[in-house]
């Protein structure tokens, strides 16, 4: 898939290369943006912004990095700028923080409507941000460790570790009367 794009790029046919980039990457860029921004509309805007940046920068793409790696790096930067632009929000990055404990406590006394799903989403929101992103992306990408590693720009082992810790923590948070593991 990327080979065709790179052939066009090498021949200076940037518009034709871009015509292939959009269908090949727009959904993955959107899923990555959603995993970071947690909001469909914001993720769609970030996807637009990313592809516009790709369009502008494509003539300067020198092929030293993989095309996907380059596009996902632009996506992550776009999303990080959006996150910085937003008002400061309560952080759950530290699972032992007061906020995270409140979030975990509110899970037990959450609303009754579809409680299992609501609880699950709140549990995921109580994870540190990098674990949240990895978990959302992993399930959006049909449990592909490789896709998550490529999109987050992390080594495969780091992603496996991150997901392991995240799911282990989710299991712990889901137990109301937690018993310490041996």
């Amino acid at each position, binding site marked *: 898939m990327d080979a065709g794009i790179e052939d066009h790029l090498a021949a*200076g046919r*940037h*518009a034709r290369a871009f015509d292939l980039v*959009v269908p090949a990457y*727009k*959904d993955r860029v*959107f899923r990555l943006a*959603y995993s970071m921004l947690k909001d*469909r509309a914001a*993720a*769609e805007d970030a*996807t*637009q912004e990313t*592809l*516009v940046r790709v*369009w*502008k*920068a*494509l*003539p*300067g793409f020198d092929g030293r990095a993989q095309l996907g790696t380059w596009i996902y790096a632009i996506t992550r930067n776009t999303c990080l700028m959006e996150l910085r632009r937003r008002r400061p929000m309560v952080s759950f990055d530290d699972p032992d923080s007061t906020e995270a404990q409140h979030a975990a406590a509110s899970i037990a006394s959450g609303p009754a409507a579809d409680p*299992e*799903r609501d609880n*699950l*989403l709140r549990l*995921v929101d109580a994870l540190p941000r990098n674990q949240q992103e990895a*978990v*959302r992306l992993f*399930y*959006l990408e049909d*449990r592909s*460790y490789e896709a998550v590693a490529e999109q987050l720009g992390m080594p495969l082992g780091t992603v496996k570790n991150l997901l*392991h810790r995240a*799911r*282990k923590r*989710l*299991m712990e948070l*889901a*137990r109301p009367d*937690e*018993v*310490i*593991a*041996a």
Partner: protein
Amino acid sequence: MNDPTLIGPCADYEHELVELHDGELPPEHARIVRLHVAQCARCRAWAEEFAALDATLAAELPRPALSPAFDARLRERLSVLGVPAVRGELRSRIELEHDSLIESLRKVTWRRGLLGAIGSAAATLGVLAAAKGLLARSTDWTSLLGDGPERWVTMGTLGATIAVAALSWSAMRRGVLGLGWPR
């Protein structure tokens, strides 16, 4: 092997249980882990709990998609932008800017050098004119230089004045920024 009152898998098997669930273990390794799970209540319970969580996450986490209007919106944005400059054009534009900057700096240096040279020449001529005036007052100009060591001091001072003038002219000619004479 384990205490059934504790929750959690045997430490040695925790990662293997996840990899077994994800289908990432080689067949022989998977067989060993399955044998262990069959014999270990704690690992079995943990693996079942993990599988349930995994299934719930897969089923319940939102799976949003791009809106149908996405492509049209993108095309509209790109149509305003036009075709981006290609790499070669960008490069030649940057090179042109660089050349024009260097050229303007050289012009400044050249002007500065010329002014310095005029100033140095004027200073040297002034010194020479003063020396000539002194010489005119005396028929025996060698008496102006004094006798003995005094003569050598006077000659040394004159030489130093000329050398300083020449050096300052040379320094101004090269320019303070060291950009060199126009090539």
